[in-house]
């Protein structure tokens, strides 16, 4: 249904109403946009597969060179790439799992149960979303130091393990897509809160969880300022911090740095492209929710 609506709607738009020529123009513009959007990745591949001299040659070399594997091997020899990758994966996977669990649990309660001070608590939740993270960058670090968590991956995982955005978004979803009748049926069977959550709510949350999962995963994977501040041991950093260090330490060897950048980017692009279907469908709805 929705598709029909969309196409008829677009017919009323300035651009959509045009001739064959305009349609070609539109397609050309879109393709140009795609090229601009993807060009930096292509250029990254070109730089990562060439030599440092190639990067600053005039006229520039615009096609990939033969040194990609060589440069990548040098990255592995120079920095503990897999160690950083492992840290990043641990943070992103554990962090995402906790967010999914805590957020959906809280969302289920907010959407389908009554309890004292519910309105107030929900309001507080929304207010917390408005506090910029940088406001408390310093005290957060000090808190971590007091906990003895500074330098540990815990500092990247635990503080953000439940977030206001996810709860809000999941609650909206729960209200719309979790029929009360199902819950009632479960209750008649004697299921309590947590069993209803696990057996009835969670399976129905799947699409929303998929979105939240990718959203959170990407955010944790790419986080930079907080790991930069709170991770201390240079042997125990995430990919982002490792790459930033590589960039400074090896500024005379740009093909090495670029190979490192490429290697740090690839895993996430794969995750995104695989999950893009779930993610992009809900993106607009999710983003505009708060």
């Amino acid at each position, binding site marked *: 249904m929705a598709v029909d609506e969309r196409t008829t709607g677009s017919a009323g738009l300035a651009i959509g109403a045009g001739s064959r020529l305009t349609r070609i123009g539109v397609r050309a513009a879109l393709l140009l946009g795609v090229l601009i959007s993807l060009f930096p990745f292509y250029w990254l591949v070109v730089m990562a597969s060439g030599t*440092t001299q190639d990067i600053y040659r005039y006229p520039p070399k615009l096609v990939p060179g033969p040194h990609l594997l060589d440069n990548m091997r040098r990255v592995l020899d120079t920095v503990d790439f897999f160690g950083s990758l492992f840290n990043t994966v641990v943070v992103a996977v554990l962090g995402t799992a906790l967010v999914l669990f805590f957020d959906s649990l809280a969302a289920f309660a907010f959407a389908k149960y009554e309890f004292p001070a519910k309105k107030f608590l929900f309001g507080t939740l929304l207010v917390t979303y408005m506090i910029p993270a940088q406001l408390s960058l310093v005290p957060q670090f000090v808190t971590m130091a007091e906990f*003895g968590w500074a330098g540990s991956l815990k500092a990247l995982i635990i503080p953000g393990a439940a977030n206001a955005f996810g709860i809000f978004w999941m609650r909206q979803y729960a209200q719309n897509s979790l029929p009360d009748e199902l819950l009632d049926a479960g209750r008649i069977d004697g299921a309590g809160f947590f069993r209803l959550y696990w057996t009835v709510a969670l399976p129905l949350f799947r699409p929303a969880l998929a979105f939240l999962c990718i959203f959170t995963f990407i955010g944790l994977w790419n986080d930079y300022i907080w790991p930069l*501040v709170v991770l*201390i*041991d240079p042997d125990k950093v995430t990919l982002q911090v490792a790459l930033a260090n590589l960039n400074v330490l090896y500024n*005379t060897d740009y093909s090495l740095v670029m190979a490192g950048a490429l290697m740090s980017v690839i895993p996430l692009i794969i995750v995104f492209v695989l999950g893009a279907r779930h993610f992009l469908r809900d993106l607009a709805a999710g983003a505009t929710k708060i």
Partner: protein
Amino acid sequence: MPHRTLSRRRLLGASLGGVGGALLGLSGCGASAGSASAGSDHLSLWYWKGSLSDELLATAERGVPGVSGLKVQGAQIPDSDIDSKVRTSLSARAYVPDITVANSDNLATFFPDENEFLDLRTLGAESVRSEYLDWKWKSCFTPSGRMIGFPLDAGPTALYYRRDLFQKAGLAHEPEEVGEAVPTWEKFIAAGKTLRAKVPGKPYLVSNIGNVFQQVLLQSTKQFVDADNRFIGDQAHIKRAWDLSVEILHQGLSARITDGTPDYNAAMSGGRVATMTTAVWAINGLKDTAPKTSGAWRLTTMPDGPANYGGSYMTLTRYCRDPEGAFAFLKWLLSPENQLKSYQEMALFPTTPAAYADPAMHTSDPFFGGQRPIDVFGPAAQKAPVVYFSPYEETANTPFFQELTNVELLGKKPDRAWRDAVNTAETTLSRLGVS
């Protein structure tokens, strides 16, 4: 120390209330002992690339010779970050390295927190004192007399220049001659004008004027803050450095490139910059940056005479798991023989005079067309003035470097930039109790 730790923790516990307090109680107890190497079989060492011999470190990773069971594992941190990273670990009291390298200007900034570092005299440092340069040894002490640093290398300076370009310009081009032909900064500028006018491709004299400012500064015994904690950065010795730098810019002799950027690398390999005014430890960086220019460079005396630029220290933090072992490592790594090896491998200039006479110090370097670097750096090390650095030096000089960049890259009026630099330095320092 435990007292302060306790009070801070109590403060947090009280303000966090029940839940937080419980969490603190839970996690606080299990917190690591603070050392980055806790639970491992080695001591941890933080350094930046090029500050220590890679070969000796590789040996120490397998086991420090002469000390059974002692292993040291190094971790590289960019030199611009190492000081703040050490501080961060100290304030977190976690993952603090057992051993760390400190830049010459950074050692003084640790003076206010001197108790975070071990007093090396308590570990028997005095027993090796006679092996080290006297001025370097003295600079390891805080004003209260605590020895928190151990001499690593020294940084005698020289003028690095491109012999080929000087020759094309019709200038004196052999090291001795250049030293005589360019005895002052004024003559240096004159040579730069000739280079630019006569050499095809119009090479620049310097990559940026900040480097010249730095060198003129170090040739003075006084810096920005004197021993009585007074700001003297608005005086003639600084203004002279400033004016000379601005003059180089106005003559169009600066390539106006920030060091360490891709552009810098391109300019150095492309022969667009004819000289470098820097210390001995820059040799390896230059070889890395511009390998293809090998053979074209030469070294000679710095205009207006040599100075000491940088040169580092090693420190042991109070979290060090094995102070005796760590000190044994320092003694081994920085012994005259090993400083000699570090010089050969990394151009780290020894702080142990016994090494200077060794034939190994006097080898020639094909990168400098077979010239023996020691012939320039050796005398420079002896003639460098002894300079007083206050803990506030970096705070005080940063605005000047920044304003100089403003003049160089953004076309700010030099007079206005100078006034702004003085004002900023004064305001910042007044907060720290320097007037």
